[in-house]
């Protein structure tokens, strides 16, 4: 088993939360992070640049067959699904899931299959239910699921749907998610 991984899914309103979370993490953060943020097909590398502007971590667009490194954040490219395999990443153009490509469910379910108990899934703000099934799958495989407090979300449909399945560990504000990540990813 290759270490641990953090997967984050966000839709409407996600960019600023992601920017905040990544700006809080120290540069020696010990785990790789894979992110799906819903966005338009045509969008360029602007999301990566926004996220990188305030973070000490290496933030990049995920590449197919790329090996996972710690202290690195991999962002799903527009119009591709991002999947996690053991120790590396994969892209696909399988049909959209809940109208979304990249889809949060695809990332979360693949991470659950490859990393089992060693996955932490974080569900942030979002206006549709893509991410709900993936979060459930992470719990079924023994991983950890954390949901952003719906009242502070720009769109609460995704966090509420994830809460409705009862498959989660905690509901936290973005500040507390940042502290949680810092504690969990501190170099021992």
């Amino acid at each position, binding site marked *: *088993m290759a270490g641990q991984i953090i997967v984050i899914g966000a839709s409407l309103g996600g960019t600023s939360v992601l920017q905040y979370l990544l700006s809080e993490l120290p540069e020696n953060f010990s785990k790789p992070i894979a992110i799906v943020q819903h966005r338009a097909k045509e969008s360029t590398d602007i999301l990566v640049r926004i996220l990188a502007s305030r973070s000490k971590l290496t933030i990049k667009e995920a*590449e*197919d*067959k790329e090996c996972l490194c710690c202290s690195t954040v991999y962002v799903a*490219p527009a*119009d*591709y699904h991002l*999947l*996690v*395999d053991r120790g590396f990443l*994969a*892209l*696909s*153009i*399988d*049909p*959209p899931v809940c109208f979304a*490509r990249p889809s949060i469910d*695809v990332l979360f*379910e*693949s991470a659950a*299959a*490859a990393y*089992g*108990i060693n996955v932490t899934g974080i569900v942030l703000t979002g206006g549709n239910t893509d991410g709900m099934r993936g979060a459930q799958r992470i719990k079924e*495989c*023994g991983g950890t699921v954390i949901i952003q407090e719906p009242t502070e979300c720009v769109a609460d449909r995704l966090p509420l749907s994830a809460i409705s399945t009862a498959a989660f560990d905690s509901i936290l504000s973005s500040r507390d998610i940042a502290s949680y990540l810092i504690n969990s990813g501190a170099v021992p």
Partner: protein
Amino acid sequence: MIDRYQSIEDEEINQLLERIFYKYGFDFREYARASLKRRLGAVLRAEHMATISELGQRLLTDPSLMERFVHGITVSTTSMFRDPSFYRAFRKLVLPMLKTYPFIRFWHAGCATGEEVYSYAILLHEEGLADRCRIYATDLDAVCIEQAKNGIFNMAAMKEFSTNYIQAGGKHSLSNYYMAMDQHAVFSKGLRENIVFARHNLVSDSSFNEFHVIFCRNVLIYFNNQLREKVLSLFHDSLCQFGILALGSKESLRFTSIDPCYEEVVAGEQIYRRII
């Protein structure tokens, strides 16, 4: 607990793929696992089966299920003029060179339902090259090849395709090339006069011609490293000197064994030229 469960699942998948290979000759053993698992799950749901071993049993006795399996394991979703900047670069920088040839052979490997084949056909038509070209469009999946042959796409997609077409440097209006019938856009027969659609298996079949251009976009992402190497060397053996190899926008030759034999024609668009 989860590790044990995972290794059982992996072992079941290995057995399934071995069985399929020996019974039917289709070799999925070197497909990228993460996507393959996801697609296997979708096949199980569609066939109302609970386990991979059940699927394995049924496949041994039911060839029609095998066809559905191939379709389920290989189908992807693309669009016409996907990545418009790629088509713009191809038109501007590759076609002028191709125009110097008396006859041009294209191979579109893994054409799926044909959206991109028709995109190239339109491009060649607009550049006055269509009569001098032959496009061999191949896919592993018989269902997809039939669909591609028909050139009928969902009308609902035409708005997006038209936008892509314009961004790709299209000279007219996409609607010049199809007729609207009910919910469908039926593409003009003239476009496929120079296209040969055929079934071909990249994993097990060999080269069938020498080509000036090979398109293989968003197929290699479904293969593991070893299989990607194998398929790239098949392309290399099928490409004439100074031939063009075009990959998907998130695929590249970097770190592959044929990389030293190629130069990038357009940075960032994954259009390569064979130089050795």
